[in-house]
């Protein structure tokens, strides 16, 4: 964080306007907001073409699926492991915008495009896959060069001590967010979440996506060994996308709880007002 007050040697106080996010962070954040959203929704449409997930090298209708979304007797059904759940109205059986009942895994409001088209979903998914790969690579190079990754994102040894992590977990649960100078830096849970997404989830999504390509399989067969087969890669890809959705929901919740206007401004202009210290 290039905090002007800190650079001039004076510690920032609650109420100060500090510079929180670099332009590269802000730009990548908003590119991602569009890219991840589009990829999740077009991905659900691709899943709709074969709403079953398997482990191993192969898997088709007659093989054992560990997850399946379908319909039975007019009811929507989600089957995970051996358990079946009724999901009528949301998964498997739902009504489209015109009130017509459809039998597809994910409903119209969750997919791109909203009416069934595997070909169109693939066109959207693979265009934004390029955006994701190129923008993530550019961000990582920039963040290594300007030391954003080392200084702001990677946890320090002391922060990883169980006592410190536990205190941060408790503070989050009590909705007690840092104030004053402490709010200028990321907390350990924030660091773990952001590093987990940037260096864990996004690379895993890209690699498991490539493992589903028969062309890439031929050139880089080690990908098949790494993930245990093409169908395992497809399952991991789906689970990572689900984890990404959970991250986004928690992220949005935290923005709402910690002052949405201030956070949104910081991510647009870079300027963040440090919350005032509580009166003692």
């Amino acid at each position, binding site marked *: 964080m290039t905090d002007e007050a800190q650079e001039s040697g004076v510690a920032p106080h609650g109420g100060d306007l500090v510079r929180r996010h670099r332009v590269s962070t802000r730009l990548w954040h908003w590119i991602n907001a569009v890219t991840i959203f589009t990829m999740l929704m077009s991905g659900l449409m691709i899943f709709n073409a074969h709403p079953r997930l398997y482990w191993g090298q192969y898997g088709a209708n007659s093989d054992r699926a560990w997850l399946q979304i379908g319909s039975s007797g007019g009811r929507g059904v989600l089957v995970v492991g051996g358990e079946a759940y009724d999901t009528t109205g949301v998964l498997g059986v739902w009504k489209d915008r015109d009130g017509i009942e459809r039998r597809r895994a994910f409903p119209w409001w969750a997919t*791109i495009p909203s009416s069934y088209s595997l070909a*169109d979903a693939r*066109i959207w998914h693979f265009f934004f896959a390029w955006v994701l790969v190129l923008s993530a690579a550019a961000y990582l190079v920039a963040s290594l060069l300007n030391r954003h990754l080392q200084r702001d994102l990677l946890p320090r040894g002391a922060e990883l001590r169980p006592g410190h992590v536990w205190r941060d977990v408790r503070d989050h649960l009590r909705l007690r967010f840092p104030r004053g100078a402490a709010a200028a830096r990321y907390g350990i849970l924030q660091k773990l979440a952001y590093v987990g997404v940037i260096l864990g989830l996004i690379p895993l999504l890209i690699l498991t996506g490539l493992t589903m*390509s*028969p*062309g890439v399989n031929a050139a880089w067969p080690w990908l098949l060994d790494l993930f245990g087969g093409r169908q395992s890669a497809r399952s991991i890809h789906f689970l990572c996308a689900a984890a990404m959705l959970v991250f986004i929901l928690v992220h949005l919740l935290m923005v709402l709880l910690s002052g949405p206007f201030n956070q949104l401004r910081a991510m647009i202009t870079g300027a963040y007002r440090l919350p005032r210290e509580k009166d003692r």
Partner: protein
Amino acid sequence: MISRRKLIGSLAAGAGGLILSGCNRINADPRVRSVLQSAEGLTMRAQRLITDRTALAREFGAADLSPLFRSNGTRKPVGTAYETHLRAGFADWRLVVDGLVARPLSLSMAQLRALPRRTQITRHDCVEGWSAIGQWTGAPLKLLLDMAGLRTSARYLIFHCADRYAQGDYYESIDLIDAFHPQTILAWGLNGQPLPVGNGAPLRLRVERQLGYKHAKYVQRIEAVESLSAHGRGKGGYWEDYYDYAWYAGI
């Protein structure tokens, strides 16, 4: 501050409205589509740039075979012509190789089976997402192309098939990099048996490293051409022409 807040609010509302009401309109806009579809060419060039273009698809062992190799798309071509061939055990079925070749070929199934063969256990990936592993036996396509003598102007092969869909005859096309690949065969056997009708009897293309819809079934004619534009709607295949599937199905 208030004005900025208002601006952000209306931008968010605008984006939300655009997403909910305009998604299908954006999806249908030809300018948007052409930008989005440009990624296909990028994917093809990138794959061929950073990977070995002769790399072999993984071959598996007998223990890895799918218990059941499912059939998809056309499960049996409609019409008396195909029915007659099926009843005669495809004795009179002929594969024609023509177009930009020096010596057009017309081969019977007996002649094709007598050619040097290649057997490979490979994974078939449907564009829908499922995979099946099967053992394929057939004549390397390179062998037929060498027999026919491809002209230097030939750049693509078009596979004309016996099955029909709502909009027209099934056809597919590949370029010469895939055509001369050692695992590209015209298969007449699956799992040690004659090719079943559901999987493309008597003859189908196996073009490993591509998705399932490129592996044309019921192949009866291979035409060498300079450009794909003169056939169908010019995009190189039935699914490409009528449903906007990618011609390069490397992913």
